[in-house]
C-alpha cells in the first residue's frame, strides 16, 4: 500500500519539479533584458562571462568577497550537497558508473559536512540580528527540511541500517514505471517523503536561485555596449 502511494507521489513530485522549473526557465529565457547592466568590471567576451559564471557557481566568488562566514557554511553545504547527490545516483542506475562509484566514500562524509554547513547557516539566521530581521518562516522551514533529509540519511547510514538493496530495486523499478516493494522503516520513510517535499517546493520557493543565478543580467552579460548594439524586441518597437 505505502509502496504504491509513494510511487504515485514520486511521479507527481517529479512532474512538478520538472514542469515547474521548466516553466520558470522558459519565462526567464523569454524575458528580455532591455539594457546592458553587467556589474563592472565585467568580462568583455563570452568566454570571459562563462568563466565568471563558473567562478560564481563553483566557488561562490561574490559571496566570498562579501562575507567569509556565510561563504564558509554556504559553500560547505552546497559542495557537500553535490557529492551527496552524486552518491545517490547509484540508487537509480545499474550498473553504477565508475565516477559515481569513485565518489562513494566522499559522499558518505559529505553528509556530515552538509548538515554542519546547514546548521551554521541556521545559527547565523538566529544569532545575527541583521539576518534575523530579513528571515521569514519559510527560510527556517527550508533549512529544517534539508537538515531533516540530511540527518535521517546519516542515521540510516550509521545507526539504523536499512535494507538498501530492496530500496535500490524499488527505485530501479520506479524508473521503469513498475511498482515494487518499499521497506517501511520509519527513518527511511521520513527521508524519502521529505525529499519529495523538497522537489515540490523547489519551483515555488527561493530554491529558484538555482536557475536564477544563470539568468542574472548583472553576471551573465558581456561588457561590450559600445562595440555591439543591444536592443530588446519591445524597445525596438519604440523606434518604429
Amino acid at each position, binding site marked *: 500500500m505505502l509502496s504504491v502511494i509513494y510511487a504515485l507521489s514520486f511521479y507527481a513530485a517529479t512532474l512538478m519539479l520538472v514542469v515547474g522549473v521548466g516553466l520558470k526557465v522558459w519565462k526567464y529565457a523569454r524575458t528580455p533584458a532591455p*539594457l546592458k547592466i553587467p556589474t563592472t568590471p565585467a568580462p568583455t567576451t563570452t568566454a570571459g562571462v562563462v568563466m565568471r559564471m563558473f567562478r560564481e557557481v563553483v566557488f*561562490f566568488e561574490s559571496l566570498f568577497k*562579501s562575507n567569509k562566514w556565510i561563504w564558509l557554511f554556504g559553500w560547505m553545504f552546497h559542495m557537500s550537497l553535490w557529492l551527496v547527490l552524486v552518491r545517490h545516483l547509484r540508487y537509480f542506475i545499474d550498473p553504477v558508473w565508475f565516477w559515481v562509484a569513485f565518489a562513494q566514500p566522499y559522499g558518505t562524509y559529505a553528509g556530515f559536512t552538509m548538515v554542519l554547513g546547514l546548521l551554521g547557516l541556521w545559527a547565523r539566521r538566529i544569532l545575527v540580528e541583521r539576518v534575523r530581521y*530579513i528571515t*521569514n518562516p519559510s527560510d527556517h522551514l527550508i533549512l529544517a527540511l534539508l537538515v531533516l533529509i540530511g540527518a535521517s540519511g546519516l542515521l540510516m547510514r550509521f545507526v539504523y541500517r536499512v535494507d538498501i538493496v530492496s530500496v535500490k530495486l524499488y527505485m530501479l523499478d520506479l524508473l521503469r514505471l513498475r511498482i515494487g516493494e518499499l521497506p517501511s522503516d520509519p527513518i527511511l520513510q521520513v527521508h524519502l517523503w521529505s525529499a519529495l517535499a523538497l522537489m515540490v517546493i523547489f519551483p515555488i520557493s527561493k530554491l529558484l536561485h538555482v536557475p536564477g543565478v544563470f539568468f*542574472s543580467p548583472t553576471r551573465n552579460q558581456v561588457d561590450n555596449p559600445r562595440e555591439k548594439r543591444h536592443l530588446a524586441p519591445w524597445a525596438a518597437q519604440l523606434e518604429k
Partner: protein
Amino acid sequence: MADGNNDIEQQIRDALDVPCLKPGAMEGLKPFVAAPEHQEKLGFPGELVPDWKEKALAKMKDLAEKNRAFQVYLDACVKCGACTDKCHYFLGTGDPKNMPVARQDLLRSVYRRYFTFAGKYFPWLVGARDLTEEVLEEWYSYYHQCSECRRCSVFCPYGIDTAEITMAAREILDHIGVGQKYSNEIIGKVKSVGNNLGLNPKALRATLEDLEEDIEDDTGISVRIPLDEKGADILLVTPSADFFAEPHIDGLIGYAKVFHETGASWTLSSYASEAANFGLFIGSYENMREIALRIRKAAEDLGVKRIIFGECGHAWRVAYSFLNTLAGPFDFLDQNYPIPQHILEYTWDAIQKGQLKLDKSRNDHLTLTYHDSCNVARASRMGDMPGGQFEIPRNVIKAVCNNFYEMDRDTIRESTLCCGGGGGLLTDDLMDLRIKGASPRMKALQQVTEDHGVTHMAAICAICKTQFSKVMPKYGYDMDSIVSVHQLVSNAIILTGQETEEDEQNEEEAA
C-alpha cells in the same frame, strides 16, 4: 551604543563598521512629491489615480515581463544576508529597511502576494503582504533612500541589484501619479530647455564667454569654449553643473585646455547641453531614451565626427552602457574612436602621446585621494580593459600630481562607497539622509587624512562634487576639499606660449 555623538574619536572608526539595528530610524522621511504639471510633462498621471492599486499591480506585471532582471531578482534572493551590511545608507542610519535585501523585500512582499503560489495561499509563511496605502508610503520613503549605486549587487552571490528594484518601484509610483519632485521637475527642464538647470542658449553663451575671459586673464592665452559650432569634429556633452558650480567649472576649464593643446576642433551644443539623464533614476526607459535622443540629434545637426562626455557618473553609465541602445546606431560618426568616449580617455591618450606639457609641482599644495564614483566604477568602463575605469583616472591624477594616497581598499574601486547624493537624492529635502549616507565615505577619508595628511579628494561626477561640497563641512573639511580631476589637469597644464613664473623670473634676471 553611542549615537548622535559628534565626538571626533567616534567618527574616525572603521568606515565599514556595522551599526546595531535602529528600526524606524528613517521612517517617514520623504522627498517632496512632484506637482501635477511636472508629472504630466513626463507622460505620468498628475496625482494618485483612484484605481492606483490595480494600476500598480498591472505595472508590476508589465515590468516583470519586460525586464528579466526584475523578474529574476524578485525570485532568486535566498535571504543569505550577505548584502545586509553593504549599503552606505544602512551603515549611516542603522535603519534595517535600508539593508539592500530589506529594501527589495518592501516590493518583493507585494510581488509574492499577488504573483506567486506561496504568497497567494501562504502569505504569512513567505512574508507576503497586501498592497495598501501604508505600503505605498513605505515605498515612497525607502525607495528614495537608495542612490542606485549597485554596491549591494557586487556582493550578492547572484548579483541581485537593488538599484533595479528601486528603479522599478519608482516607475510604478510614477505610473500611479506619485512622482518625486526633484527628479521629475529636472527631466521636464531637460525636455523643454535642454539642460537640468533650465539655462537657455543665450545665458549659456554668456557664461562660456565669461569663462574664456577668465582663462585668458589667468594664463594670457586665448582658449576657446565653442558653442553650437557646425562642422566641429567633437561634440562635448557635459553635465550642466560644469557651467556654473564649483568645483565643476574648474573641470570644464581643464577640458577646454586639453582640447586647446591637442588642437582639437570641438563644440558644446545648446540643444544637448546636459550629460545627466535623470530618466535613469526613475527607471523610465522612455524618458531616458527621449533625453538620449537629444544628444543624437545635436550630433547630427552639428555634423560632428565624435562624441565625448565630461565628468559625470550616472551620465557616463547612460552614455557608455546605454547610448548605443537608446539612440544608436551611430554609423554617421567616425568609427575609429570609441562611441561615445570619456574625456578622461581622451586626456590620458593625449598625456601618453606627450601632447600636454605638465608641471606636477603646480599641484604640490594639495595632497590627494580619489573617490571612485559608483556609476563609473560598477556600471561602465573606460579604455579597452575591464577595470580601465579605475586605472585611467588614477593614471591621469598621478601624471599631474605628486601627492596621491588611496583610501582603504574596501572603500574604493568596485567596492567604492556612494557619495550619498546619487540616484536622484541630491535635493535639500533629503539633506539629513545625504549627510548620514556620506558618513562611511567620510570616515574612510578621515582615515587617510590622519595617516597621510590628505587634504583634498578628487572625483569625476557632478553629483559627487555637489554632494561633497555640501556635506564635507559637516565632517570637518572645507567645501572646496572636493576637486574635479580635470581641475588638477588644468592646474598642471602649461599652455603653449604661456609664461610660467620661472620664465618671468628668468626674464627679470635677464633684464
